[in-house]
C-alpha cells in the first residue's frame, strides 16, 4: 500500500497543480467571462472570509465555501495545512534546499502560541471594523506574491532569455528556442509582460516566510499562521485525532522526530490537537504500529496552552488599533490618486472586505490596477488602485469584479460597468501640446472610449497658431484613464485622472 507520505505528496502536488492552473488562468483568454472560478482557493479560506465579513458587518455569500471548509475541519481537524494549503506545499517543497536538519528554536511552546495571538489580534481588529487579515493570511500572501512579484519576474527573465537568443542566437538555436518560446507563451507566460509596484516588497515577504524554514520545518505554519490557528481551534473536537496504544509505545520518540508541527506531546502519547495537521507521518514512523487516527483507543488530546491574558491582550490591541488607524489623517482625507476599480464598494466597506489577495491586479487586462503604496492610507497597503500612467481600465472589461473573492469589487454586467465613474480627468494646460501652443495632438480624444466622447475638441487660436484643443466633458467622463496612459508626453501625462466624482462616493 502507498505510504502516507507518498499519498500526501501526491495530494499536495495535485492540489498545487490545480492552484497554479487557476492562477495561470486568472487572465483574459478570449472570453469576456472567465471560464473557471479562479478565486476558489481564497473562497475556501474561513480566516479571510470571516475577517472580511466581521469587519464589514455583512454575510458574504461569495465566501460560502469557507463554511464547507469549516465543517470539514470540524470533522477531520487541521488537515488543510498538511494536505491542501498551497503555501504549506511550497514550504514542504523548500525542504529540498533546507535539508532535514533545521537549526531549531529555543522556546517552542511560547513561539507556537504566537499564532493564536495573531488570530486574537485579527479578531479584535475585525470586531472594530479594521480588517488586517491581509498581513497574515497564507493564501493572500501566496497569491499576492505570485501575482505581483514572482510571476512577473519569471516572465521578465524568460522573455529576456528567449529575446536575447532571438536577437543574437545563430539560426540553429532560434530554430529550437522560438518554438519553445511560442509554447511557453501560449501555456505559461503572460500575454504581455506585467509590471507592478511593490514587486520587491511583496517578493521579500514571500521569501521571508520561506527563509523561516531555516529554523524549523513549517515555521510559518507552526508559529505564525492565523489560518492554521483558526483551523486548529475548529478541529479541536474532531473524532479522527491521533491516538497511541500505550501498551505498545516504547517511548522511542520516532513520532516526535518526524512531526513537522511539534504536535506530539510530552511522553509521546498525548497530542496538541490544534497543532496536528493530520499528515500521518508519525503513524508511518512508529516502529511498534502504536499510532492510529481512528479506532477504539481513547485519544489523549491537549488543548492549546496559549495564555488567556496574552490572548486578551492581543484582542485588546487589535481592537484599539482600529481606532489608531481610523484616526490616521490619510484614512479621513481621500488621496486624489486613490482611484478604485469599477464596482468597488464605498471606501470603508471596501477596506473591510479587500484582503489584498492580488487577484484583481493579476487579472487586470491593461495592467492598470496596481497595489496602493500610500494612496489609500497606511492600511490600504497592497489594495488595488488604478494608476493610469501605467495602465488604464479597459472599457468593455469586467474581470476584476469577476475574481474578487469577497465582493469588495462587485461583479457588474458590462453595461453597468461602463456607467461607473471611477474618477475624472483634467488637463494640465501648461503641458498639453495643443494647449501650450506646441503642436496638434489629441491622442487622448482618439482613445476616449465613451461613445459620445468625454473629451471634446475646439479649434481655438493661441498666439497666432490654431490647434484643436481638448476639453473634458465631466458629465461623460468615467475616469477610465486611457487618456492618461496614451498621452504622448514621456514623463507625466498632460491629462490626469483623479478619484474626484467617483460614483461610489458622495456627490460634491
Amino acid at each position, binding site marked *: 500500500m502507498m505510504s502516507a507520505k507518498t499519498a500526501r505528496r501526491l495530494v499536495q502536488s495535485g492540489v498545487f497543480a490545480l492552484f497554479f492552473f487557476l492562477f495561470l488562468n486568472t487572465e483574459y483568454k478570449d472570453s469576456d467571462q472567465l471560464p473557471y472560478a479562479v478565486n476558489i482557493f481564497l473562497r475556501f479560506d474561513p480566516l479571510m472570509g470571516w475577517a472580511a465579513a466581521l469587519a464589514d458587518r455583512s454575510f458574504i455569500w461569495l465566501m460560502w465555501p469557507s463554511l464547507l471548509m469549516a465543517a470539514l475541519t470540524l470533522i477531520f481537524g487541521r488537515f488543510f495545512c498538511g494536505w491542501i494549503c498551497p503555501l504549506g506545499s511550497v514550504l514542504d517543497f523548500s525542504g529540498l534546499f533546507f535539508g532535514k536538519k533545521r537549526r531549531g528554536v529555543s522556546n517552542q511552546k511560547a513561539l507556537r502560541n504566537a499564532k493564536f495571538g495573531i488570530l486574537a489580534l485579527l479578531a479584535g481588529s475585525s470586531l472594530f471594523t479594521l480588517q488586517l487579515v491581509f498581513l497574515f493570511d497564507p493564501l493572500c500572501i501566496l497569491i499576492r506574491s505570485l501575482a505581483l512579484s514572482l510571476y512577473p519576474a519569471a516572465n521578465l527573465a524568460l522573455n529576456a532569455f528567449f529575446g536575447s537568443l532571438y536577437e543574437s542566437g545563430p539560426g540553429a538555436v532560434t530554430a529550437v528556442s522560438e518554438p519553445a518560446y511560442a509554447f511557453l507563451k501560449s501555456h505559461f507566460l503572460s500575454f504581455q509582460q506585467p509590471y507592478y509596484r511593490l514587486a520587491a516588497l511583496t517578493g521579500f515577504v514571500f521569501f521571508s516566510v520561506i527563509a523561516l524554514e531555516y529554523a524549523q520545518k513549517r515555521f510559518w505554519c507552526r508559529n505564525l499562521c492565523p489560518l492554521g490557528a483558526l483551523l486548529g481551534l475548529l478541529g479541536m473536537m474532531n473524532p479522527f485525532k491521533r491516538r497511541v496504544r500505550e501498551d505498545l509505545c516504547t517511548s522511542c520518540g520516532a513520532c516526535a522526530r518526524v512531526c513537522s508541527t511539534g504536535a506530539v506531546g510530552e511522553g509521546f502519547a498525548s497530542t496538541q490537537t490544534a497543532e496536528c495537521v493530520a499528515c500521518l507521518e508519525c503513524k508511518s514512523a512508529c516502529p511498534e504500529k502504536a499510532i492510529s487516527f481512528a479506532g477504539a483507543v481513547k485519544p489523549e488530546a491537549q488543548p492549546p496552552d496559549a495564555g488567556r491574558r496574552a490572548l486578551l491582550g492581543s484582542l485588546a490591541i487589535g481592537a484599539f488599533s482600529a481606532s489608531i488607524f481610523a484616526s490616521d489623517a490619510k484614512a479621513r482625507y481621500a488621496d486624489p490618486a486613490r482611484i478604485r476599480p469599477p464596482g468597488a464598494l464605498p471606501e470603508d466597506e471596501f477596506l473591510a472586505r479587500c484582503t489584498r489577495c492580488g487577484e484583481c491586479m493579476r487579472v487586470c487586462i491593461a495592467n492598470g490596477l496596481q497595489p496602493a503604496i500610500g494612496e489609500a492610507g497606511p492600511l490600504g497597503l497592497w489594495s488595488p488602485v488604478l494608476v493610469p500612467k501605467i495602465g488604464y481600465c479597459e472599457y468593455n472589461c469586467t474581470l476584476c469584479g469577476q475574481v474578487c473573492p469577497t465582493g469588495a469589487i462587485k461583479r457588474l454586467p458590462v453595461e453597468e460597468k461602463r456607467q461607473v465613474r471611477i474618477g475624472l480627468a483634467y488637463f494640465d494646460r501648461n503641458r498639453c501640446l495643443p494647449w501650450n501652443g506646441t503642436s496638434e495632438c489629441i491622442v487622448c480624444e482618439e482613445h476616449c*472610449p465613451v461613445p459620445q466622447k468625454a473629451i471634446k475638441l475646439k479649434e481655438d487660436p493661441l498666439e497666432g497658431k490654431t490647434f484643436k484643443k481638448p476639453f473634458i466633458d465631466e458629465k461623460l467622463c468615467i475616469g477610465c484613464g486611457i487618456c492618461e496612459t496614451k498621452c504622448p508626453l514621456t514623463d507625466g501625462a498632460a491629462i490626469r485622472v483623479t478619484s474626484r466624482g467617483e460614483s461610489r462616493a458622495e456627490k460634491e
Partner: protein
Amino acid sequence: MDRREFMVKTSIACAGAALLGGFPAAAQAQAASGVVVATGESPARNVREAVKALGGMASFVNKGETVVVKPNIGWDRAPEQAANTNPEVVREVIAMCLEAGAAKVKVFDRTCNDPRRCYVTSGILAAVEGMGDSRVEISHIDERRFKPVDLPQGVFSQRYSFYEDVLTADKFINLPVAKHHGASRLTLGMKNLMGVMGSSRAAIHRNLPEALSDLNLALRSHLTIVDATRILTANGPQGGMLEDVKKLDTIVAGTDVVAVDSVATTLFGKTPDEIPFLVTAAKRGLGIADLAKIKINRVKA
C-alpha cells in the same frame, strides 16, 4: 538587401526623383490611379467584384508569394460599430489571395485597446480562424519584430520602424475601414499604416499629414481596399453609438492609396482638399488626390 528592402528603397528613390520633377513617378501613379467603387448587398461580393474590376487578385499576387493583409483591428468594438474592418471583407480578401496562389497570408494589427479583445470583438479572429487554412496566419504583434527603416526624404522624421513581416512580405494589401477621426478628420488607407509601424504612434500625432506621407513613402501598399460596408461618421475612430454608423455596402479599391482615399472621402460628403493628409500626400507626389484626374469605375456587385 532583400527584395522588400530593395523595393522600399527604389520606391523612395522614385518618389524622391518625382519631387525633383525629373522622374515619371507621378505619371506612373496617374496611370495606376484607377479606382473601383463596388456597391451591393454582400460585403464579400463587393470586395470580390472590386478586385475583379482591377484585374483580379492574380494581377497583384503571384503564386508562392507571402502576402500581408492588414485590416484595421484597432478597437474593442463589434462589426456593427464600424470601428474595425468588416470580418467578411477580411475573409474574402484572404480567400482571393489564396485563390491567386499565395503561399502564406499573414493578418495582424497593432491595436489601440487590448489586442486580444480587439481580435475577438472585431469578429476578425473568428472569421480568419474559421477558414481553417494552414496557409493563413493571424497573430498578435510581437514587439521584438519591429525593425528600423531609414527614410532620408522623411519630413516629420527620417527614421521609422516597421513590422518585419511587412518588410519581408512580397505583397502588402492595405485593408482599412472608412471612419471619422478627430485629428485627421478621416482615417482611411494612408492612416492604416500606423498599425504596422513601431515606436511611439502617439508622437506622430503632432503632425499627422507629414508623418502619414512619410509612412506611405516608406511602405507602399500594393493594393488598397477601403471597407465602407459600414462607415463611422462621427465620434471616430472608435465610435460606439450605432447612430453614428451609416451602412453603405461599398468597397473602394485601387493601387494608388492616395487616390483610393480621395475617392473614399466622397462617401462622407467631403472632398480630398478638406483632408490635410491627402493634400500633403498629393503635394509630395505620393499619388493623385484630384478627383477630376482619377478614373472612377463604379461597379454594381
